[in-house]
């Protein structure tokens, strides 16, 4: 790769974009103008916005005659609020007389801005006490108590009031009786008379009615509850006083709280949920528009062919364009952040607790922006390369945004923490690190930074690889619009079958496997009996692996034998594969333990796994070998190393095929702790399949590997009892199995590597694309004409 060419392409593309008014508008003008304008608009709007007090219908509470007063001068007593001004947020409405008044169909004296049906159903009068002929008087009889309560509820339900506060008819009288009885008891106690300790006069409960489906009503109920709590407390204090006791009798102490966070940290925490989201979303948006213009736009304008016939290689072109998109992504994100920060700071600084985010956090934002911009740029570039026109390219923005949004926004929820599991999720890990940095939790952020950096780097590289691949595909670069017809498409699939599946078919199989696995997982409950477990396991294996693999093999390929690698390997491959599984078992066991230490099984999952482990422990060993070793070895191998690996071989590089098929193998295991180890084992099995050209060594390895894993927990304890010398090679572990000693692990791995080197010596069958890539690799390093390479031309060109 010539860096000079990359620089030239970068410089041209940047200049080109800077001359494009649309790009400049989205990248520079929009962020600079948008937020100040929004801020100004909000400021202007705020002058016209004022909080309307919540309307509370108070039935029977106007003149309770209880000290301290709940209502003073027609309002809730200001002393019952944490701040006297807050008293304006609750506006009480009373029936107009001392009696209970509720009206039906009243039109006069309505509270302003009543709900939808308020004109029909509003009850009560404003505190002015105006009465209309429609007002119905309820006499205070026990018979009608429930009617009054129901009436108040229905008015809240209809939206006429945000809440209703109902005092039973005899509330004041009974409370007064309660107080008097307390006073009498106090006097009696003072006079040394006998007091009935069990005596407790009953005071009827006031009720609050609110509408939980209406946010304003909900808030009103919370405020009202708090007011009543304070009022009740004050009444209690007075009661104590009347009994000759101090108010501190009930509350001898108060709790003092101490916030150890500094002011800056408190201010930073507010920013921690805003800035990462903005940064990541704008980095994505900033990448997309230039990507569409640089790929789809070039195709549309016909300049791409000119560039492709220039000495610049495809990798150089992709890198030049990628750097341009990255640059604009970074500029967009930074300008937006600066603009949002400046506007927000001016507006938010008026609010208590908001200040500038900590400088270290700003540095971390800048550092995180680089890999994120690279990732989004590569994804956008690859997607935009698919589009035939800028218009089509813009359609691809939505799915990308929809996929990215949850990864960016969900980590901002208070319940999501930065841990190893979350740090493995692309984008989410970065968002969580940023959140931690902004909140001042530097040590936690640094602890997981290497994992997040590694994951981000891998995803970045895969995305860039994908983008380069797109630029190497004629079917992508020179795609012409074709009317899509399902019938024609199905006919095309069946008519134009190749001996082995295409990459697209392999991806389709992966998606099918994961979807079926997901749905079956939600259908089946955790089995309680071994028979049910065995049946569920076999059905899952067949439905998840065998059905899609065989269905797609017979539908989409012309040679099932070649696709599923159904051929005999070299004579030594099968015993060597079995031996390899044995020699790698100690290392696999160690890795399994390591993974479980790093990522302990979640508490939610543990009971199900323990239940299954219980069933396994009670079952016959050889039945288990058949079920857990042989069945998956056949089903999973046919899908992962048969159909999927054959499809990925058309990518042009065997290691890419091996890694992708192994990743799918890992993902199909469902549980993270299993997936990691399965992916590594998948690499080994796929290598055996590629080198031997047969599925059988992989099946044997898989079966032996699973059998040994079973034996480790089932047989090991007996072995330790019968042959104590075994303890020189292994020690019992917590899970009932055994852990091998370091010499055994190292020795086994070395022998395993030796066996793998034997497989490496087999001249492995190559796909046409792999042969082509190798020929190109050789040709590119030769400045002289390579006559011998001409033979390589007889290959399928469009990969």
């Amino acid at each position: 790769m010539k860096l000079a060419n990359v620089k030239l392409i970068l410089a041209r593309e940047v200049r080109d974009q800077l001359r494009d008014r649309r790009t400049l508008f989205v990248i520079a003008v929009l962020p600079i103008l948008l937020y100040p304008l929004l801020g100004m608009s909000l400021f202007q709007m705020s002058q016209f916005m004022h909080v309307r007090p919540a309307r509370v219908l108070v039935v029977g509470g106007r003149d309770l005659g209880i000290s301290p007063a709940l209502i003073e001068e027609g309002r809730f007593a200001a002393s019952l609020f944490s701040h006297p001004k807050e008293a304006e947020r609750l506006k009480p409405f009373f029936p107009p007389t001392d009696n209970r008044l509720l009206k039906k169909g009243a039109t006069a004296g309505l509270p302003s801005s009543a709900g939808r049906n308020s004109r029909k159903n509003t009850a009560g009068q404003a505190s002015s006490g105006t009465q209309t002929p429609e007002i119905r008087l309820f006499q205070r009889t026990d018979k009608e108590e429930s009617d009054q309560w129901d009436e108040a509820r229905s008015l809240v339900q209809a939206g006429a009031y945000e809440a209703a506060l109902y005092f039973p008819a005899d509330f004041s009288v009974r409370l007064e009786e309660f107080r008097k009885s307390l006073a009498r008891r106090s006097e009696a106690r003072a006079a040394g008379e006998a007091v009935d300790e069990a005596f407790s006069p009953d005071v009827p409960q006031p009720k609050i009615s609110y509408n939980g489906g209406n946010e304003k009503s909900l808030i009103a109920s919370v405020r009202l509850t708090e007011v009543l709590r304070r009022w009740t407390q004050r009444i209690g204090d007075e009661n104590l006083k009347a009994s000759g006791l101090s108010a501190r009798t009930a509350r001898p102490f108060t709790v003092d709280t101490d916030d150890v966070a500094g002011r800056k940290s408190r201010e930073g925490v507010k920013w921690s949920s805003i800035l990462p989201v903005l940064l990541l979303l704008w980095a994505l948006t900033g990448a997309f528009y230039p990507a569409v213009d640089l790929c789809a736009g070039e195709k549309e304008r016909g300049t791409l062919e000119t560039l492709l016939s220039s000495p610049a290689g495809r990798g150089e072109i992709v890198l030049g364009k990628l750097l341009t998109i990255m640059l604009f992504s970074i500029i967009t994100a930074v300008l937006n952040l600066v603009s949002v920060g400046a506007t927000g700071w001016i507006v938010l600084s008026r609010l208590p607790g908001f200040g500038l985010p900590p400088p270290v956090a700003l540095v971390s934002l800048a550092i995180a922006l680089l890999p994120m911009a690279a990732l989004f740029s590569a994804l956008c570039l690859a997607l935009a390369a698919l589009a035939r026109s800028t218009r089509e390219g813009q359609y691809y923005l939505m799915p990308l945004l929809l996929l990215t949004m949850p990864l960016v926004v969900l980590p901002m929820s208070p319940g999501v923490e930065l841990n190893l599991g979350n740090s493995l999720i692309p984008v989410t890990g970065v968002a969580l690190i940023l959140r931690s940095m902004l909140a001042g939790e530097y040590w936690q952020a640094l602890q997981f930074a290497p994992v997040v950096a590694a994951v981000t780097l891998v995803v970045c590289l895969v995305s860039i690889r994908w983008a380069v691949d797109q630029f190497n595909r004629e079917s992508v670069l020179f795609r012409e619009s074709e009317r899509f017809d399902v019938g024609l498409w199905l006919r095309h699939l069946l008519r134009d079958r190749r001996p082995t599946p295409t990459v697209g078919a392999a991806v389709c199989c992966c998606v099918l496997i994961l979807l079926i696995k997901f749905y079956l997982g939600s259908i089946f409950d955790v089995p309680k009996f071994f028979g049910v477990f065995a049946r569920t396991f076999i059905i899952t294996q067949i439905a998840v692996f065998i059905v899609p693999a065989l269905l797609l093999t017979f539908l989409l390929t012309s040679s099932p034998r070649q696709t599923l690698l159904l051929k005999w390997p070299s004579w030594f491959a099968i015993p060597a594969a079995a031996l390899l599984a044995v020699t790698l078992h100690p290392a696999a066991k160690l890795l399994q333990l390591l993974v479980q230490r790093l990522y302990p099984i979640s508490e939610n999952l543990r009971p199900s796994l323990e239940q299954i482990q219980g069933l396994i422990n009670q079952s016959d060993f050889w039945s288990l070998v058949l079920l857990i070793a042989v069945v998956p070895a056949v089903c999973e191998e046919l899908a992962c190393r048969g159909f999927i690996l054959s499809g990925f071989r058309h990518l042009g590089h065997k290691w890419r095929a091996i890694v992708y098929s192994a990743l799918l193998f890992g993902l199909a295991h469902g549980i993270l702790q299993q997936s990691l180890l399965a992916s590594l084992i998948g690499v080994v099995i796929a290598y055996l399949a590629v080198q031997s050209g047969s599925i059988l060594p992989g099946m044997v390895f898989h079966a032996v590997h699973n059998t040994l894993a079973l034996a480790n927990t089932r047989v090991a304890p007996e072995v330790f009892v019968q042959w104590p010398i075994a303890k020189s090679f292994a020690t019992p572990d917590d899970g009932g199995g055994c852990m091998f000693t370091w010499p055994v692990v190292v020795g086994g791995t070395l022998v395993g590597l030796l066996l793998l080197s034997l497989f490496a010596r087999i001249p492995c069958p190559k796909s046409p694309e792999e042969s082509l890539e190798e020929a190109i690799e050789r040709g590119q390093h030769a400045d002289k004409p390579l006559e011998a390479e001409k033979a390589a031309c007889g290959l399928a060109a469009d990969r």
Partner: protein
Amino acid sequence: MIHVHELTKNYSDLRRGQFEALKGISFHARSGQIFGLLGPNGAGKTTALRILSTVLRPSSGSATVDGFDVITQSAQVRRQIGFMSANTAVYDRMTGWEMVEYFGRLHGIPREELSERMESLFERLKMNDTRDVLGAKMSTGMKQKVSVARAVVHDPPVLIFDEATSGLDVLVARALLETVAELRDGGKCIVYSTHIMREAEKLCDRIAILHRGTILTEGTLEEVRERHGQHDIEELFFQLISQHDQQSLEHFLSR
């Protein structure tokens, strides 16, 4: 200079499935000669030239440019050629000068040498009026001149022109043909595809008539005329194409 041997190219679409756009074509083009690739629309000319310029890869067969294989040594091939087609557009937001300079730099020409070369090229092609004009504002003739300049700025031994006069008025087309002839006289190996017979007669030293992915005849103009007993190239063209279509129909019916 250019050797094409049994070159095939398969495409696939929903309606036709796999089909051959080129059915094993072979030809040679030498230095100091213009090789004309003649054929109607859809004959496979553009596909063949895109393979020679390494934009596409063949399905089978081989092609070398100046000894370099178009598949395995595509980077080396691209350094030997200048490719211009009616489909190749110019960048809307670059001036004529910037565009030619950009491709010159991609070919690794040092800045000073490039500047001198461009001055002389702009003079020779009478395109100084395009120097500071953005691609979006250029006329078709201006764009074609810029494309020619872009294709020859690095002085490649091989030039590939695909329907270069398509859409040009007579004056500009004539000027362009004169330029191509001058380049041939300068010792370049030129492959020139067209469906305009008069252009081919005036310009080409050797021709091949391509129809439905098959070369129907190939040779110098005289050889072709003699072989088919037809002096008028346009008539010869119609005759060969009609014969081929007739044979294809008969072959299809006989199956």
